């Protein structure tokens, strides 16, 4: 049992090493944009990054599974385990969405926080694998917490997409400004930024070239929305499942415990995000900022509320 716990930790270290290589490779891939545009270059660094990320995810999954076997229960009963599981979901989601769209430029934004979170997990949050306390010994531990990890992992990738969307949006607006005089001369309407072709010849700088390499901001926005919608539904489920479990464990479905407050605030923030998408003047860029605010609150709810407030969820950490 102890050996398996050690093996799990080793696998997590292995995954961190792989992610570290991937992070450097993604960085090299990005920095190549400094010298030339995205067109026609093989992106060998990106290929290496994707391979090492895949390797990292495999090791990461091994680490999670062996941890569960070592503890003799589901591997998400404390903050260390929760962190290794939701980072696995994030990295896995990143790999999965590549099937629909080439979003390798997102890599650095996913792998770097994953690496940081794992570093925090093994250095600060680590505790040895052990059995389960009576307070957590419930089938809702399997359901409530696993769905929460999935929601956070997917929110994380959606947040990375929103960041990329904002970068792209910036370059699109810059392109629109540059094109404006020509449009004015032609007497035509202002062009849609999303359909703007990258101007050949003109030096657009790093951000411009990065923008050219990315899908249009509208498409990034839609992708982020789809992930956020899935994660929001999972979060809603987490909230309801948590209330049912709280009713079983503490005799009340809702008690404004700091953790419950945090979960509620995140839910309301993402509800605002979904409403913003349907409100004129709030869609696009502002909705993306709201989504990022939501993810910021997810992080506050996880790190600040867990570690710095007195919560009845405390035994989980």
């Amino acid at each position, binding site marked *: 049992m102890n050996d398996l716990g050690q093996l799990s930790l080793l696998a997590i270290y292995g995954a961190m090493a792989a992610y570290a290589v991937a992070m450097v490779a993604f960085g090299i891939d990005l920095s190549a944009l400094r010298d030339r545009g995205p067109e026609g270059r093989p992106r060998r660094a990106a290929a290496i990054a994707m391979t090492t990320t895949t390797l990292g995810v495999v090791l990461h999954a091994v680490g999670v599974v062996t941890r569960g076997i070592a503890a003799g229960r589901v591997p998400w009963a404390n903050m260390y385990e929760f962190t290794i599981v939701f980072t696995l979901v994030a990295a896995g989601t990143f790999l999965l969405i590549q099937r629909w769209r080439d979003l390798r430029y997102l890599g650095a934004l996913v792998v770097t926080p994953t690496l940081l979170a794992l570093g925090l997990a093994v250095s600060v949050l680590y505790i040895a694998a052990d059995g389960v306390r009576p307070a957590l010994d419930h089938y809702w531990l399997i359901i409530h917490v696993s769905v929460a990890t999935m929601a956070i992992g997917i929110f994380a990738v959606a947040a990375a997409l929103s960041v990329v969307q904002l970068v792209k949006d910036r370059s699109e607006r810059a392109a629109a400004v540059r094109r404006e005089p020509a449009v004015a001369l032609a007497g035509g309407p202002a062009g849609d930024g999303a359909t703007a072709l990258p101007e050949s010849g003109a030096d657009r700088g790093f951000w411009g070239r990065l923008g050219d390499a990315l899908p249009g901001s509208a498409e990034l926005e839609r992708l982020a929305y789809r992930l956020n919608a899935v994660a929001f539904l999972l979060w809603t489920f987490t909230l*309801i499942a948590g209330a049912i479990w709280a*009713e079983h464990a503490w005799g009340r479905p809702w008690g404004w415990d*700091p953790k419950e407050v945090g979960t509620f605030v995140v839910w309301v923030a993402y509800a605002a995000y979904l*409403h913003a998408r*349907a409100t004129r003047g709030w869609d696009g860029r502002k909705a993306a900022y709201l989504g990022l605010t939501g993810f910021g609150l997810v992080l506050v709810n996880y790190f600040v509320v867990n570690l710095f407030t007195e919560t009845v969820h405390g035994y989980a950490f």
Partner: protein
Amino acid sequence: MSYRPEGLRTMDDAEQEAPGPSAPAGIGLRGWLRWAWRQLTSMRVALLLLMLLALAALPGAFFPQTPQDPAAVARYHADQPELAAWLDRLGLFDVYGAPWFAAIYLLLFVSLIGCILPRTRTHLAALRAAPSRVPRRLTRFPVHATHTTTASAEEVTGAVRAALGRRFRVAQTPHGLSAERGYLRETGNIVFHLSLVGVLIALGASQVLSYRGQAVVVEGRSFANALVDYDTFTSGSLVDPDDLEPFVLTLDEMTSEFTVDAQARDFAAHVTVAEADGTSREDTIRVNYPIDGAGANIYLAGNGFAPHLTVRDADGEVAFSQPVPFLPEDDFYTSRGVVKVPDVSRGLEQLGFTGYLLPTALVDDAGARSVHPQPNAPLIILDVYTGDLGLDDGVPQNVYELDTEGMTQLTDGEEEVKILLEPGEEVELPDGLGTISFDSLPRFAALDVRYDPSLTVLLVSALLAMAGLSASLFVPRRRLWVRSTPGDDGRTVVEAAALARGDDPGLEQELERVMTAVRATGPTAQEDT
């Protein structure tokens, strides 16, 4: 009514757009009220209220809250009196009961109802109405296709209807075929929002219809569901505390399991519950697994030891003999307890004891302490007080606190007298005050009883909200139009277009599916898609 589901802007341009925020001039009071109502029920205001709600709820996670943890609030007042006074004034120690918090969520719900009801009306009308008319120019839609076939218009229509299947509602109009699917999307959206109202109502009902009480029950003893048997009891305004549904619970045995390093593994209270109708059953209460007693839930909230102590006074009369719950204070069940002996023989002073029970006592140079929560080597260490317990003043006392104001602690010179008791031992009290004996060590269970008839409504509302939300987010709402025009050469020109509400990655495949069926109607003619 500009409360629209996400992505509506890609469809139904006619439904757009709400009046701007600029206030109209010279419209009188009614006009102003109407304007205010339209503002309140607008999506923009709903959005602002949502953001405000998130912001307003946040402080409650970081400041202690009176309803949840009054002791922490008291500590805050003691540590930072000036800041605390201000926080108190702003209601930050009771955020969720504060008027400004209530104002935000009530406005939000008014806004929600104000826009969901008209939407429900619109949706019901849409459900009854025929699918939309076919637009004049189908080629202006981003997702469209054309095809020329040798089949007749009727054959094409038949093929399209077959391909559309039962998911689509189809209507034949003079301008072509109009089909629509995914009404469930808006139904889900409406169900979701109305269910939230249900959640709010359930939580409100819980406030007035529920009661909650705590009681400590020692092994072998019983608890009756009546106000007198509760240590603490709170109830909603519509609950009559003198008329609770009766049941009697007897604690047969309280068991616990720990690992060698004192990690808790299992707690179980084995009980017998006798209901009012005369039936009786055995049951087990575990952490996380409450049982039912007369419709109320009974939870295992805590456990510990209640050593049975007997005190004889100076005359040798039994002055006290009963189990005394000692409340655990750490992981090793170092437990604190108080014994009050008021009924001594006439003329003698009352006795009071306070001290600790150590389930597995280890006594060394550093003092005595418990090293494991199981009773492997129990030891009770008590201080002794004599004098007036203050029980006759009529002021209710905490049974777990000894009021030492009218009492003096027994000392032996400078040293305080410590009574050490192991199970089965009887020890002489100093100064000939009598004896105290430690007869046995039963356990106790701290039970939490809660009755809340609103839970079913809450659960159903929450699950409906969940179902409605998934439908409103993931059911595709699509319109599809097909127009077949007979050409001069006897062939039929088929034009088709599809439009979705919101993001719909499957829209093109849907049209493609229909067009495949169209192409199958006749030999492929020239393709000009």
